[in-house]
């Protein structure tokens, strides 16, 4: 997906930064000016311009705290406006996460701000990546997890380690997805959960880091520290803590606490990219799925549910395409057919959403196209979106999906 993201100061309309995704020419300054101008013109008349659609593109505007205007130009996703509005909201919150709300609302020196805001580019870019990401958390507002058989053992290790770090917030990421986390970590808001894992993913790989973060909902103005340590390749442990302990101190502890867990860690990385244990059997025709638990803000996603035979490679749908279709399907269903989850972002529901016109609750929906089939199921608190190959008969979609759902949630030891 190609997109432009423009950030301007709300007062003067000074461009603060632009990010582009995809192979696009940068927008000339007058165009940026007029894009911002129409919105400013409207607000002087007490009218707020929310979005505009063209044949193939969509533009959304949003002003945050009377200080920053964000404009997002993206491909028309054929879905409710609210998806893009949530995305733009997440962009702002990620700026808060990295830069702090205080500095965002009081921009004193624009030139300095322009330089400093660059720290959030990596995170913002990963939000714009969409289908290029191998996680879906930015879309589903719930954090990607992996269901490993070793999770319960790793939980003990993590709890012990976090205690040593004198912080209740800790989690273990396997290829960017949460394997285990402390109870306190799960109490973070869904956006914080999503953005924290995205942040760790978006940063360049290194063995250990110490970065200041602001929790957008927990403490947007007081910074915390995010410490991460790479345990084995693909596995990182993250701790959010106060001024102590120092990175060096904790670095020494890492070795002590995690040495014995090496084998478990090693095996937990192997679950990627399936993300759920092989003991759970799935239908041959399933190409990928998203399982979301709206209560725990977790989602389990995969586009490679089984090992591809080398002989079949190339014949089936590419991984990227699977992600793209699943994302499009999710967007076309949520807030159009399914009632959306209560978002904890401060977005007032301003988008015109079609689902409010539906009188009855939608439980299931499916799409049959010439290359694939999709089925979605909404059983509180779970939502399951499955991508099937074209070979499955339409009448079998429903039963296969039901079976998949029950087999995924019946495991008591590994809860989504």
């Amino acid at each position: 997906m190609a997109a432009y993201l423009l950030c301007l100061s709300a007062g003067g309309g000074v461009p603060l930064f632009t990010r582009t995704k995809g192979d696009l020419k940068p927008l000339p300054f007058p165009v940026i000016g007029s894009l911002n101008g129409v919105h400013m013109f409207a607000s002087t008349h007490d009218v707020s311009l929310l979005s505009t659609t063209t044949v193939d593109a969509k533009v959304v505007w949003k002003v945050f705290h009377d200080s920053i205007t964000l404009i997002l130009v993206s491909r028309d996703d054929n879905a409710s406006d609210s998806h893009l509005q949530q995305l733009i909201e997440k962009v702002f919150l990620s700026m808060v996460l990295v830069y702090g709300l205080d500095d965002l609302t009081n921009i004193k020196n624009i030139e300095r701000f322009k330089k400093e805001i660059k720290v959030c580019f990596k995170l913002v870019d990963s939000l714009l990546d969409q289908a290029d990401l191998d996680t879906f958390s930015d879309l589903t507002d719930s954090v990607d997890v992996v269901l490993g058989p070793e999770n319960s053992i790793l939980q003990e290790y993590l709890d012990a380690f976090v205690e040593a770090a004198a912080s209740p917030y800790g989690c273990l990421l396997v290829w960017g997805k949460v394997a285990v986390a402390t109870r306190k970590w799960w109490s973070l808001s869904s956006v914080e959960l999503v953005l924290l894992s995205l942040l760790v993913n978006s940063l360049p790989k290194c063995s250990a880091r110490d970065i200041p973060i602001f929790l957008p909902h927990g403490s947007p103005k007081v910074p915390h520290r995010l410490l991460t340590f790479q345990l084995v390749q693909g596995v990182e442990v993250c701790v959010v803590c106060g001024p102590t302990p120092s990175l060096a101190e904790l670095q020494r502890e890492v070795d002590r606490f995690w040495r014995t867990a090496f084998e478990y860690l090693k095996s937990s990385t192997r679950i990627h990219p399936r993300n759920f244990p092989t003991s759970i059997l799935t239908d041959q025709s399933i190409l990928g799925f998203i399982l979301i638990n709206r209560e725990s803000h977790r989602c389990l996603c995969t586009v490679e549910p089984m090992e591809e035979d080398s002989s079949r490679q190339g014949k089936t749908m590419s991984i990227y395409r699977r992600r793209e279709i699943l994302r499009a399907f999710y967007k076309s269903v949520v807030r159009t057919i399914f009632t959306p989850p209560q978002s904890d972002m401060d977005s007032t529901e301003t988008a015109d959403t079609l689902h409010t016109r539906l009188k009855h609750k939608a439980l299931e929906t499916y799409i049959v196209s010439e290359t694939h089939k999709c089925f979605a199921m909404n059983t509180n608190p779970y939502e399951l979106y499955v991508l099937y190959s074209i070979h499955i008969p339409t009448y079998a979609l429903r039963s296969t999906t039901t079976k998949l759902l029950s087999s995924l949630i019946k495991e008591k030891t590994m809860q989504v």
Partner: protein
Amino acid sequence: MAVRSYPRDYYGPLDEGEEIVDDDDYEEDSWSSYTDDDFSDSFEPAWANKVGEKGDLFYVEPPEGEEALFTSHQPLHINGHNNTGINSHEVNSAQTNGSAKQKEKTSIKKIKGFIGLKKKDDLNGHANVQPNNTSTPPRSVTFQDSVVGQGLWRQVYINVEPGRHNYGRRATLCETVFGIIPGSFDSQPMRNGVENGGPGVRDTRIMVQGLVPEGEAIKCGHIKIGDWLMKVNDLDVDFDSIDTVISTIQGPTQVKLTLQKLAIDFPSRPALARKTNDATDHLVKLVSGERLGAYIPQFKNVPHIAMYLTLEGSSDSMREKEDIVYQFPRQDNKLVQVRGLFITLCHMLVDVTNNSAKNSTLLVEGQLIHVGYSKQGREVLIIGVPANRVPAEQLNHVVDDTVRMMKVLYGSLRGAFVPREHQEKLDHFFSLLFQRVLLNEELRQHGMKCMETGQDGFLDTLPGVRWLDLPDEPKVNISNSLSELEAADFAEMSDSYYDRRRSYTILGSCLFYKGYLIANHLHKEDFMDIALYTKYYCLLALSSEHQVGQVVVWKEVFPTRRCHEQTDPLIPGYTEPDARWFLLVVGLKHSLICVLLEAGGCAGWIEGHPTPDPFFVDQARATLLHLETLDMAGQCEARLHSPSFPALITADQQLQGNKGASSQQNAKAGTKAGASPVSKKSQGPESILKNKKPSPLLDRSRTESDGDSTQSFDTSEGSTPVMNRTFDRKPSAGSEDSGGSGGSNQLFKNTGKKSRTMPGAYDMSGMRRDLLRQDSVKMTAGLDNTLFHYLHLDSMEGVYVCPTGAEVSDLEGSALHSQLVQNFHACCLIIRKVFEKAVKAKERETKGIKSRLGEDTSLIDVKEHGVLFRCSPESRTDKKKEAPSLTYWVVGRLFFDPYPREVYVCFQDSAQQNLVELAFKLSFGMCV
């Protein structure tokens, strides 16, 4: 021997040199006798004074019933009905010629055209035709005051030359000398100046009943039909004295005529308006655009706007609103204030995305507003509506339709909005548009159900009109009648008879009854233009709800196919002729006939702005009347009131069936030994089963379904029905009867028996009746009917079909079901959006259009989309027991082959059949 000039054809002016000598052939009787048959509004068509400057006409007349009210209030009136009015022409004819009746009959039609011409000429001559918005009660003529000197009378000087014309011996002096055909204001016909029965004082005043072509009166252009001829050379005249007065006029001289004009406003009008202010009258006025004034208050608090903005002119002129070419409603609101935003957005987004903006969402004073755009060069059409009333998807359609409508009506958007004189017409259009899409309460109160059913805006967005499938015989008959009209073979009325090129070719026509399309003989694109017209001018809605007295619409149009989309012709070398096209809509009661006429091509070329051709109006009307004799209305009503086909079931019935079934169920389980065990949901709705008439047709459909029906028997609750299909295909002992299974065992058996014996019986009439009734063919397989609702859209033909049966209106009463239907429509809107995107994406792909921001190909090939809903009746307060709930599917399917079609069905979750099969069955049964 009387010599009378006779028009060589009914359009061209009389050529002085070629007088047709005609002995007794010409009958004055024919002047009046043509009123005798069906043309009650004969002499002066009621719409004549509504014709606009450009010859266009939009005339809607309230139903007959109310007219009695009108007329009874009028002190003076001409009642155009059979026994009244026009015969006074004979006043001065000494002899009444009883012979040559045959010829008279044949000349009737010619005269019709002839008179029509006179009126036309007359109207053309006058710029001061009555303003469109004054509402003269049709067929009632009155004067402001009958006393001279009240200001409404006027003096006209004409040059006369007695003896110059000779129109035959029965022509009155008034005709020969002045070219005025005298008439009476009295409702009683005058015979030789003698009071012809009837009590009361005889009214001997002379009314200008007609003008002789080439006569002096018509040449001077100041004498109008309906005027009261008061004085000649300052001498008072009446029927008794006129001849004496005229005979005194000698030689070529100037004569002073004193006339009193038709009253423009009636003193009794307000009272009348109040009296007749019931639903129909109200609606008629609404549709005919007479209530524009009342429009504003009702939408005062609803922010909405239609604007046509231009970039022309400097930015300094913003204050003077020079950039607004057109605006409706005129009141300024926030949306007008921020109009600069719209036009900037439209032009600027091209730089960003290569495409112009389609719609925007704004938050105005806490209310979400959608704004739709259509950019044409440096100008933009903008329509803004509140989001809670119109979803963005619907708005896009409204904008597209409006643009198409404007192009069809005016040739281009510029041509529509720029000329000032179109303003009133546009106001009319947009007031109707907003009334329709904003769904104001008023319309609902007045029972415009047609609009109400579209309250989800879904049916409204469909590119087509509702189609009523009649049985073959009436369908053919109706089609034949239309063909007859289109053939334009009017015997002596035909152009060859006059050795002259015809002025119009009829390209095709279509017929509506109560808003349903009955027959269509037009090319699809032309038809869509016309269907849009009838939809946006609420003509369909009007005729579907109320009997209208008369509707006449005449408008030059620029059909999309012929004027705007120059595609390569199918036949190489063939191009559409360079011509002008006219739309004629004639309505009567619930029927509406739309005719597309072509001038140019193989017909003669027309210059200027031709007024409605009374001849074609009459022909169209005659066709409608002819159809009435064929009992088209009866056939349609029968079809509308017959049980819907395929049979439907209401949600409420289904729920009740679930609840109340169990006790009955047990009792029945024993008796139904032969059949397989019946699942809980098998309790059928009795009403539908009762309607079930055995017929060969039915029988066949039943046997078809038998194979599938067996699978329903061993379904356990909660299992997935779609799966069952694969497992349960095995023959069952009871399969023979299972298709018609029933609420009561007896009925069940009866049905089975009859259906076997029926085809053997030689009772053809019964069979035919059954075929015609086509009742209650169950579409779904299995024991029960599970189909709630359906919709089939054929975008090739521009029609859609959805349930029409009598049940539908019953269903409206049930809360749950109407909710279900609403939900169905809302869901269809969602599904259809996906389909539209898929079709568009495909188009773009084939055309190779690349978007700057990348193509979204993920949902490009969608051909089926289904949603499962659950509902439970809200009324239940009993919380201990779990409320019974109903789950149902709404499934949409898109077919590309052989041409694009869409089918939407709504059926119960327990439907024991493959979804696909259902959709297919439904769509294969339809052919236009």
